């Protein structure tokens, strides 16, 4: 019998230094020559769900109170909940030490396999984003974490800004899996002048713990 293997849509050219096998994913924890930042981290293996309900106020996915206003997000216990519209919320499990599975209730859809997910963290991340999208991440009226649903490198994406503060800045971006190679290529190309390098999951785990 062949071994089940889940494959990330994100491929980096860097050489992995440390990998981990987790839930049939081959997760890279560290890459060779990660540099000093900013970093691009593949999080496509992290579980992600959509929840749809006509009365979201009555739902508490993983014990989290869903934000009321579309565009608002909440990060609690390693789960990021992003209010998309009146009836939908997207849920990202960002804590590698506490992996969750999909609740056995109606309304949930697992989207882990159908989307790519990357984190862009460190200094100058918004300068890189400015080259790829017209969305205003530095809008003074928006307090992190917040969600943008809009084009990034001409691809419809969900982008969650987790922190806007200087060297600790960072965001998470998801889009359809099929855009994987082109999206990564365009982000790395835009980030070249800022020293953007692929990084392993350890780098993201450390960053999010410091938030």
């Amino acid at each position: 019998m062949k071994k089940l293997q889940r494959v990330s849509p994100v491929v980096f050219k860097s050489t992995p230094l440390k990998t981990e096998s987790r839930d049939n994913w081959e997760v890279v924890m560290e890459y060779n020559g990660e540099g000093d930042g900013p970093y691009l981290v593949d999080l496509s293996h992290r579980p992600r769900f959509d929840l749809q309900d006509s009365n979201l106020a009555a739902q508490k996915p993983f014990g989290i109170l869903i934000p009321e206003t579309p565009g608002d997000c909440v990060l609690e216990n390693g789960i990021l909940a992003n209010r998309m519209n009146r009836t939908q919320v997207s849920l990202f499990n960002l804590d590698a030490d506490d992996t969750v599975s999909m609740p056995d209730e109606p309304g949930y859809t697992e989207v882990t396999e159908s989307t790519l997910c990357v984190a862009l963290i460190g200094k100058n991340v918004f300068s890189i984003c400015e080259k790829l999208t017209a969305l205003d991440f530095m809008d003074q009226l928006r307090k992190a974490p917040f969600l943008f649903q809009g084009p990034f490198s001409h691809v419809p994406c969900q982008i969650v800004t987790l922190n806007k503060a200087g060297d600790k800045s960072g965001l998470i971006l998801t889009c359809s899996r099929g855009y994987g190679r082109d999206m990564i290529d365009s982000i790395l190309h835009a980030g070249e002048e800022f020293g953007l390098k692929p990084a392993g999951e350890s780098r993201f785990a450390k960053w999010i713990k410091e938030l």
Partner: protein
Amino acid sequence: MALTITCPICGKRNGYEFKFGGEEKGPRPDEKDLTPEAWCDYVHMNKCVAGVQQEWWFHKDGCGSWFPIYRDTTTNLEKPEPGGQK
């Protein structure tokens, strides 16, 4: 002139993020006693107003919402609802 559109979910965005969905034509006509000519008129005939008209837009690169706005077709600028609060 660049068109911007105010999405009820995402706020004011570049017009290129949206797809035009046609004029707002009111509710679908009652099927009882509906003639093919009247249905054809409802589906295909437009007023093509030179001025402010209500029309549907789809936020294809964003949240995926369908919503109506008012737009001045002579200036290609979004306008507030005539006599309303928008």
